Structures are given as C-alpha cells and as structure tokens.
C-alpha cells in the first residue's frame, strides 16, 4: 500500500526513545546496510526483504535527500518471493525423476536424490520466472515521533517491524487506546480510574422462560 497515492490505510507506532543528535547520519548508514538485495535464481533464499525508495520498489538508490524529506524519514519495505506454481513444480519434478530413473536404470530414487533433484528443478524454474515483488511504505515523522506503516497485513507488519528494529535498534510502540490516552496526558487520578475500568455493556438480559407446568 502506498503513502503517496490514493486513500491511506495505516497503523501507527510511536517512538519513545530519545533520538541522538547525529541520528540522521547514523540512521542513513544503518539504512544503507539493509537496502534490498533483489533475489537471484542461484541463491537458496525463497524470500528476502529490504529497504527501497518509498513508492518505488525498483528504486534502491537511497540517497539521504530521498529518505529524509522535510522532517520525515520515508522508506519502502520491498519483499521479493519466489512463487513457483505448485502444479508446475510437481510436473517438472516428475519429469526429472523419470529421466533420472531411466539414466540410473532403477525403479526408485533415494530421499537424498529426490531432494537434490527438487533443488535443481526449482533453480531452473526460477531462471524462467520472476519473483513476486511487494512493497509497503513507511513514513516516520521525526518531529511527532510517529511512524505510519501503510499496511494492515499481519505478515508484512511483522517483517516491517523486524527490519525496523534491526535497522534503527529499538522497538516502536503500537498505538492503542491506552497509549493514545497516555500521550494526551492522563493525570494520576485518571490513570487510577483507567486501571479500575470495567467494560461497558448494553446487554439486555432475556427474561428467564416461565417454568413449565408440572401436571402429569
């Protein structure tokens, strides 16, 4: 999901750590270390994530002026994944196994041989396909200490949070009714009242059914 076009869907996180004076330089160096390295067919990884330019999954040139915009730190989380259709892999694997059995003059292949064949077939198929590419935007207002993750997908959020922590070295706090209340300035009495809160319910109890007549 994008921060730059269309309607916005996002979750908010907050930074409770005081940022150091040289944060911009340090953060930029840390980002450079986690720039997306696109997947290639010869690597064993089936999936990989890294930073890209916000709004453009193909742009991996994260110059400082493209990341830090007017008090915001903007990034895209790009995730590449090899998605080989299961039916295609199965068919190619069956063909390769048949060839191998013929070559070796045996009726069956061992577990290890099968695993090796699967690896070879997978690599060959990857060379003919392109990995799926997904991008999720992130915008961090350094002034307000609020980070907006432009996704509601649980898996994407977890990956984003993990990479964020790995890059910047701290865990942002997700927004909730309590965190918003705390930022708005709950005083001691209100905090005590918060701890004692019980849920409001407008439930209307159904009247108990009338007792059945006991005549035999």
């Amino acid at each position, binding site marked *: 999901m994008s*921060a*730059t076009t269309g*309607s*916005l*869907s*996002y*979750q*908010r996180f907050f930074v409770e750590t005081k940022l150091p004076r040289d944060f911009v330089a340090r953060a930029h160096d840390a980002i450079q270390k986690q720039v997306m390295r696109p997947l290639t067919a010869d690597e064993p990884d089936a999936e990989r994530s890294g930073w890209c330019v916000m709004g453009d999954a193909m742009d991996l040139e994260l110059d400082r002026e493209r990341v830090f*915009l*007017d008090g*915001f730190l*903007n990034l895209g989380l790009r995730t590449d994944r090899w998605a080989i259709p299961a039916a295609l892999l199965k068919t190619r694997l069956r063909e390769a196994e048949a060839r191998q059995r013929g070559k070796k003059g045996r009726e069956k292949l061992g577990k290890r041989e099968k695993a090796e064949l699967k690896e070879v077939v997978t690599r060959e198929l990857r060379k003919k396909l392109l990995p799926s590419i997904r991008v999720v935007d992130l*915008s961090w*207002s350094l002034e*307000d200490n609020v980070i*907006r993750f432009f996704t*509601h997908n649980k898996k994407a959020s977890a990956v984003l949070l993990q990479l964020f922590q790995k890059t910047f070295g701290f865990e942002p706090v*997700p*927004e*909730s*009714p*309590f*965190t*918003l*209340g705390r930022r*708005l300035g*709950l005083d001691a*009495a*209100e905090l005590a*009242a*918060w*701890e004692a*809160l019980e*849920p*409001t*319910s*407008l*439930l*209307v109890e159904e009247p108990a059914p009338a007792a059945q007549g006991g005549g035999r």
Partner: protein
Amino acid sequence: MQLVDLIEKRRFVGREFLLWLWLESELGDATLSTAEHGSFGLWIESKLVLSAGKESTRITAPMPGQGREAKEALRRGQLPQTATLHIALGEDETSLTLEAESFAVRGLKLKTLLDAAGDDDAVPGDLVDEMAGRKPGRPKAKRPPADEEGDANLDALARFQERMALTHAREELLAALYRDFLALRLARAWDAAIVPAMRRWAAGEEVDLAAYRKATKARGGGDGRAARVSSKKR
C-alpha cells in the same frame, strides 16, 4: 498494573469510544464539537461492524448506525469493532474507517488540492477503462527528462507534505474527541448518566437530552474539555 495489561486488557475502551461517537452523533444531529475545532459534522456511514466474542454483526448501509439491527446488536452485548466515519470540517469532507482496538485507519480519503489539480482532464486510457467497466485511472507517469526531474521531485514532495498535513489534522481531530471521551469515561458521570442514556437510546426510547448535556458539561467543568452535542433538538 503492568504496561502490557494497561494496553491489552483495556482495548475495549476503543470500542466504547466508537460507541460514544455514534451516540453523540445521533443525539446531536451529526454535529459534534471540540474546544480546538469548534463545531463539525461527524457521522457513521457505509460500514459498521459490531462484535462480542465470536458473535458479530456487519452492517453495510448509507447510515448503518440508524437501523434497528445496529441497536439490537448493542442490546445483545456487542460493541463497535470498526466504523466508517464521515467528517465534515469547514470546506473539507473526508471519511475513514477506524479500528476500535488499535486505532488503525483504513481508507482515509483526503481531499488534496495538489492531487485534484488537472483531475478534470481526460487521460489516455480513460475511454478503454470506461468501456471495460473499470474505474478510470491515470497512466503511470513516464520518468521525466533530467532537467524536469528536479521539478517533479519538488512536486512529489509538495504532494506528500500535503497528504501528511491533512492526515495529521484528521488524527488531531480524533485525538481531541478521544480526550473529551476519556474525560467522561474516567469520571463518575459515565456510569451515572452516560450509560443509562445509552441504554435508553439503544432501546429506541427518548433520551433526556438536557440531563445528558448537563452530565457531559459537568465533567467538562467549563474548561471546554468535554465534547458537547449541538443544541439542536431532534
């Protein structure tokens, strides 16, 4: 109480916030106010989801809160889980879907001036889209020549700034409402006056508006903290 408990065990407060917005909107003819923003329009439109445990009620209608189905769900113990809010503040109208327990936002539609510029012009592909029954879209912008790239970057920056400023403004409005809600929710007035009014409202009975306002204003203490429903009589 540990921080995790303060957060996790009190997520229901977000549902009660949506419930309160819904009540205020209906009692005040969709007009609410905060000390900072003055009066503005706010109502639930198009989608309202209520739930309790495994039971849920999903209502899709132009004004989903106004039918009996929604009130009946409340009387079965369900509370709002998500609601699409329409907000009309001055010239600006926007809508967004708010998730009660995380305050996550979906589908925030912003009325941006920069995005709107030139939107009336047809763009290549519109006719094809229209014939195919698709929503007309804008073609992907070609990479500008080097000498125009600087202007394009400035344009993109201005658009981004505008979008973030408008987003921030909507969040500030919701935060102001939430602060007013909390002032009531954490006071005795909630159980003494607000919940009884909610019960009558959910049952379709007359709500004593004067008593309700008195209760909300009493908590506000004249410092403008509590949101006030408009003085319009239903």
